[in-house]
């Protein structure tokens, strides 16, 4: 019997599990996939938004600004890359100027620190590669960028280190409540019992909740497609186009690893798992992006991808206890800026759970997590490490400079990688310009040996995505 079951290991579920692991609670987090972070949390813009965008006086605005402020400490504790690179919302005409002023006022109301309007001279001084013709911009210094799957994985791993149980390949298909006890059952017939259930199943959130009762909310999927370009010093801030009657435009931002992300668009999809990219979508994005950064060169593209937002009609998040079923909490429909808000959301959920369970904080909670980033070490540190473990002296991924030691570490960690993409999301082997063309054979060998698999059993990503036959 568990105290809490969290359904879904995206950024929301992982944040909640880690926050609750600070207390003397028995927690299980389940996910239908073979690894954490396979939903919206792995395919988004990875922006820690400043908070200039959400309507004032909404829960979304409040959680956005609160969450934003928590990132430094969280990412430092967990050894996750994060940078406050600042954002610019750029305007090209008088109408835009008006809109930017409205956004500034909204920022002030939302409590966004340091936001101000800057003139075109200052814009081009900051970002010389922007398209000519920008008249002014809203500068949001608190906006940041984060390694989003690294963070999700690190949160979940740290939760595990603090006693949380993680079950992958556990697709919830039935939930029952008998007295005060929930029984959560997987497709394979595995059952777990608990006192509290937290539904953090993203785009599937409505379906999951409806396993126990009818719901009024309606979650719809909206796909966003992207280009991921090779490393280049094109922009340092996150660049948004000022919203206008022609739409919102697309953003151009560096990633924490120095690549450039361009996207997303926003199209309704019937199937919430539809992460395909389309020719029309990509053409549309590239055209729009050139309006703000005309020096973009899409020949430098190394990967296209897409993610699906879980949106509810009201543009609000669904967070709270189910009105009909006590101790069943929904934390779903978390569209943008859900990543940013996630640490604040988990604080909210924690307050409810602590009150309900009357639980106490653990004295032995481990809040820190270390990870080796070989290329960031000094020469002395590198040599010390190689002295101890020779596998750090072998580069396996040439594009990102990732050593065999780092790959082995990513497989051997508490929440170790079990797939080729899992290795990539943990240590970046295969994330560079050749997309694993060079290192995939080596990573496959390492996974196979570490996990005692045959070559044919190694998968790229999902179950069934075997690389060899």
């Amino acid at each position, binding site marked *: 019997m568990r105290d809490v079951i969290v359904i879904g290991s995206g950024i929301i579920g992982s944040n909640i599990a880690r926050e609750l692991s600070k207390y003397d609670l028995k927690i299980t987090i389940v996910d239908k996939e073979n690894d954490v972070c396979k939903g919206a949390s792995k395919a988004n813009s990875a922006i820690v938004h400043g908070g200039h965008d959400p309507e004032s006086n909404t829960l979304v605005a409040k959680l956005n600004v609160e969450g934003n402020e928590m990132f430094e400490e969280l990412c430092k504790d967990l050894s996750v890359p994060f940078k406050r690179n600042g954002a610019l919302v750029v305007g090209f005409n008088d109408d835009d100027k008006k809109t930017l002023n409205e956004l500034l006022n909204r920022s002030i109301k939302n409590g966004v620190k340091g936001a101000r309007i800057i003139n075109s001279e200052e814009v081009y001084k900051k970002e010389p590669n922007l398209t000519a013709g920008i008249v002014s911009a809203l500068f949001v210094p608190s906006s940041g960028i984060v390694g989003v799957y690294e963070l999700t994985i690190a949160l979940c791993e740290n939760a595990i280190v603090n006693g949380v149980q993680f079950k992958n390949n556990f697709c919830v298909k039935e939930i029952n409540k008998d007295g005060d006890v929930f029984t959560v059952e997987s497709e394979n017939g595995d059952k777990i019992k608990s006192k509290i259930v937290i539904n953090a199943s993203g785009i599937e959130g409505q379906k999951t909740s409806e396993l126990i009762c009818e719901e009024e909310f309606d979650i719809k999927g909206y796909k966003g497609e992207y280009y991921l370009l090779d490393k280049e010093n094109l922009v340092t801030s996150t660049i948004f186009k000022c919203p206008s009657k022609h739409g919102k435009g697309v953003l151009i931002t560096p990633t924490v690893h120095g690549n450039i992300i361009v996207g997303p668009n926003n199209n309704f999809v019937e199937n919430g798992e539809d992460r395909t990219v389309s020719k029309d979508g990509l053409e549309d994005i590239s055209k729009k992006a050139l309006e703000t950064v005309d020096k973009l060169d899409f020949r430098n*593209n190394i990967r296209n991808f897409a993610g699906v937002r879980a949106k509810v009609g009201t543009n609000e998040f669904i967070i709270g206890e189910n009105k009909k079923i006590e101790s069943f909490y929904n934390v779903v429909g978390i569209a943008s800026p859900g990543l940013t808000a996630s640490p604040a959301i988990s604080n909210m959920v924690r307050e409810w759970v602590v009150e309900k369970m009357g639980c106490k904080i653990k004295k032995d909670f481990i809040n820190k997590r270390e990870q080796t980033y070989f290329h960031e070490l000094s020469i002395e540190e590198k040599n010390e490490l190689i002295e101890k473990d020779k596998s750090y002296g072998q580069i396996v991924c040439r594009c990102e400079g990732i050593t065999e030691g780092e790959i082995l570490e990513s497989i051997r960690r508490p929440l170790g990688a079990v797939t080729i993409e899992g290795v990539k999301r943990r240590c970046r082997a295969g994330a560079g310009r050749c997309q694993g063309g060079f290192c995939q054979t080596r990573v496959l060998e390492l996974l196979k040996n570490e996990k005692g698999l045959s*070559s044919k059993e190694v998968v790229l990503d999902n179950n069934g995505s075997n*690389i060899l*036959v």
Partner: protein
Amino acid sequence: MTYDLIVIGGGPAGLASGLSAFEEGVNKVLIIERDVEVGGILNQCIHNGFGLHTFKEELTGPEYAQKYIDMIKETDIEIKLNTMVMKIDDEKNVHILNSEDGYKVIKGRSIILAMGCRERTRGAISIPGSRPAGVLTAGTAQKYVNMLGEKVGNKALILGSGDIGLIMARRLSLEGTEVLGVVELMEHSNGLTRNIVQCLDDYDIPLYLSHTVTNIIGDNRLEKVIISKVDENKKPIEGTEKEFDVDTLLLSVGLIPENDLINDMDIDFDNRTKGVVVNESMETSVEGIFSCGNALHVHDLVDFVSTEAKEAGRSVAKYLGVDKKEVGKKEIILKNGVGLTYTVPQKINVDKVEKIVGVMFRVNKIYENVKIVIESNGKKIKEYNRDHMLPAEMEKIILTKDMLEQCNEEIEIKVTDMEV
């Protein structure tokens, strides 16, 4: 530790350049290779067709490499395996990493860049669809099949009809993977006729010219590939879709010189070749740093790589030997005229030329019965007849010292019609 020459990369270019420098009298030569053995991409090219020019016999890739390895064994050339060059700094120090030395900085009086090339990927051509397993580059598939003895799929389609694509079509067929077709964007194949006959026709594999892949379908493993015919602007034509039930898509869509190492260096780069700019001595804009092989520009045949690398090695010997002050600085820039996409070298220091310089170049489309004209200052220096030229086939012309002395600081090479 100081070396007279540090060669970065132990493929055919690195081996041949190191060897030739040694033979010309350079003493302390070090070749650095990140893999477990030297030979480069040749190790996985187990088909024959190598060495017809260099050794006058038909060898496989590993056999060709072995010839050089055997010759190097007879010398004092040092080879470091399992060693990655991480960086070249402003003082021409080479930063290396391996398990034995750790991270170490070594000094070279001269350096040859011979890092080879990498393959273009799905991202480079933004193929729409899902992202399942079973979509891989031809080179990666070649490594799985030839080096690791694995099977990559049961039914395959191949995009790109260059020689690598063609050779992999045959290779997969021999390994029991059914190849349903080779798809090519252009209206002609970029492979050798010999390879079309021996790799496709002999195995009844259809070639879809003027087609490209327009959709990739499959959630986990690849299930289907859609191809479409393209118009004269290479845009897919709606309504021409063909569907293939395959679990494997091989991409053979071009090679790019691998020059990540010099990204942070102040060294002239040519965006046409995606390699560094060199002169007649294969020397870059940084004195004492040379380049050759596929890192300089992509070659069709390894024999050409070896020839060019030999030249680079000789130039290193000259560079380390002569009193540099004696050499004049008359430099001629090679300009790409009509029809050319690039030349290597990009510039020539006339005073360093002994008798002749070979100039390699590629053309932008198919040409029949044309002339290659060399001009300087509006004056025709020389012309050559060509009855057939293809973008996929590297061309070479020879400029003599006499010719160069008639030129001012620019030479234009262009393609013109016969009657002009």
